[in-house]
């Protein structure tokens, strides 16, 4: 076939495409630009080195190439954290928006299954025990088992923990082990020094695997602290797996519930800074001991 013929065919096809209605997609580029494939001819192979697409400036980039009102679109996107202005190819999301969603969901899924760093626990001098939820699947299915210590765990706590401290602090992975890895090194010294400065005795800290907040009741049945507190990984939000909470109760009993507890939530760099959260927790512990109450009773008091 002659070169001339090929060009004629291409022109005919292009003309037909332009004439057809609804086949061009205004919000997505119809074909990749030529220079994007330049790397394929590089003698060293593809040269791909991407900037982090999860950074704020990348997230705020509109996915619509030719919006009717570009300034207006930016203002709309700035009005909400919802993923708008993402564009489409046909009825489907554009590639960048789709990959960003996968990245944000992926990081939560990894956090959920992430085992807390054993070296970190050792560095901070925390020994480990387990809840009755023997594995991650049981943990997710049976919240009741995550609220109870195994008999072996109870024996270890009886053996190794100081009894009747002013404050017992322990750590649980909760729904995000990554949150513990992210925050624990910063918050533990603040808690230890803060309680020390306040003249309060601190129990022996430890770590519980597959932990739920309700463990406070079982733990205090053994250590009998005035205030019992758990540092625990929160359920990961999309793109937000590093958030930790502290739940605290004044003399938790076997039947204590969330109504009897206080919580400091959203602890991570970017949310409530772990250093501030630790200081806040010490103040709250002092207040609970002074008022001999926590939860709803503390608020009413």
């Amino acid at each position, binding site marked *: 076939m002659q070169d001339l013929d090929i060009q004629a065919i291409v022109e005919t096809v292009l003309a037909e495409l332009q004439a057809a*209605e*609804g086949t*061009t*997609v*205004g*919000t997505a580029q119809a074909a990749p630009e030529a220079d994007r494939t330049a790397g394929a001819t590089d003698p060293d192979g593809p040269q791909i080195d991407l900037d982090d697409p999860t950074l704020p400036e990348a997230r705020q980039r509109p996915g*619509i190439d030719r*919006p*009717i*009102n*570009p300034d*207006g*679109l930016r203002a*709309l*996107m700035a*009005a*909400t*954290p*919802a*993923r*708008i*202005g*993402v*564009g*489409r190819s*046909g*009825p*489907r*999301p554009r590639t960048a*928006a789709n990959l960003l*969603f*996968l990245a*944000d*969901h992926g990081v*939560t*899924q990894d956090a*959920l299954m992430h085992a807390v760093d054993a070296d970190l626990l050792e560095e901070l001098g925390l020994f480990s025990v387990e809840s009755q939820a023997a594995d991650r*699947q049981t943990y*997710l*299915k*049976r*919240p*009741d088992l995550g609220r109870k210590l195994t008999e072996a765990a109870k024996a270890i706590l009886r053996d190794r923990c100081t009894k009747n401290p002013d404050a017992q602090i322990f750590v649980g992975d909760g*729904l995000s082990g990554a949150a513990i890895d992210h925050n624990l090194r910063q918050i533990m010294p603040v808690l230890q020094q803060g309680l020390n400065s306040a003249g309060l005795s601190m129990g022996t800290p430890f770590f519980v695997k597959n932990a739920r907040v309700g463990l406070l009741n079982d733990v205090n049945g053994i250590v009998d602290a005035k205030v019992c507190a758990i540092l625990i990984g929160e*359920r*990961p*939000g*999309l793109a937000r797996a590093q958030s930790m909470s502290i739940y605290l109760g004044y003399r938790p009993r076997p039947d204590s519930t969330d109504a009897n507890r206080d919580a400091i939530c959203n602890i991570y760099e970017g949310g409530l800074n772990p250093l501030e959260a630790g200081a806040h927790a010490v103040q709250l512990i002092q207040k609970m001991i002074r008022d001999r109450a926590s939860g709803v009773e503390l608020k009413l008091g």
Partner: protein
Amino acid sequence: MLLRTKLFGETFEFKSVRELMGKANEPKSGDELAGLAAASIAERVAAKYVLAEVTLETLRANPAVPYDQDDVTRVIDDAVNETIYNEIKGWTVGDFREWLLADQTTADMIRRVSNALTGEMVAAVTKLMSNLDLIYAAKKIRVTSHCVNTAGLPGTLASRCQPNHPIDSPEGIRAAIYEGLSYGSGDSVIGINPVDDSLSSVARLLDMTYDIIQTWQIPTQNCLLSHVTTQMQAMKKGAPVGLVFQSLSGSQLGNQSFGIDVGMMDEAYELAQKYCWPTGPNYMYFESGQGSALSADAHNGWDQLTLEARIYGLAKRWKPYQVNTVVGFIGPEYLYDAIQITRAGLEDHFMGKLTGIPMGCDACYTNHARATQNDIENLAVLLTAAGCNYFMGVPMGDDAMLAYQCTSFHDAPSLRQTLGLHPLPEFEAWMEDLGLIKNGRLTDKAGDPSFFLSR
């Protein structure tokens, strides 16, 4: 009562209809949590064998909560059409399944029998249905409703525009509404889950959404999914309410945990007839979801499928415009993974349609469930094949307020264009007038929220 079978030489016996119903269920982590699930797959199948021989009369006589203790049971039982019931009460659950699937059984015949069913009968037959059974049978049953526009017509698929914002910013919500409308989401309702349940905040968002509807002459209705009592106050104060929303549970105790009872909902329904601004006659919007009764310890020892079926029987009392299960919202301790969420979504849609209510689905999952966006897209395709009335439309499926994932604004047009469906007719005509859709496909102008900045 004797409920027993042999299977491969082993005898399986069930002490009560309650135990039988729990063990005949497809696997659900919530039934395991409640201690109601079969101990083995063989026991599950044995329970299905026995259940297939139980009559509808026996099921009516064994409600999940006794008639004199529970207003949900009373609402459903009192609504049974006795003439039709007398025709079908001798059917076994196995007979009922085959009748629903039979070539001779038409949509009208099923709609007629719906008037004689209780939640326990609906749940029982569902336990004998495979996933494709659920799709095939549901597809037969069309339930239409009308408020501003007409929902549930064959060949249509609607989308609720769900423009939630973490602090209820009216401008942020407006931006997400524009995005949704530009994709053809919003024909089911423009429905906001507010963070702030106060009357002033709810009324402000009702005004804002009504203003958008008026400015653009959109054939749709607005709704603030606050507690029903807030909406009742809003209506009395003259706020523009399109649909009145409430979450429902399958037992009186469960509804108590939601702060409602039948009397309160009767009053809300009357107020809706009196104050809602659209044409009607259907003004109510309900949500449900397997496991809600168990999470409130209000299941009375019954399985989550049966409690869910009872919600639909209760919802029917107030002639809803739309009802959807929020199927994966409750978390993995009730529906563990994509298999269970998919199954529950198909069950709930079928049960709603069999009960005779206009059923949609919030196909969704939380971050700690073993599910992904792919799974929820799969469920949406299956439910669209089953004739589901509507799905949610959320920016990229990521709800900025409720911290869960569901279907995207992109998904309704994708499902429509893949499976040859259209938006609701009045809404599609409006989109055509604006040039956002042509021949059932999005045009170049669609998918750009700044389109709606011109008025």
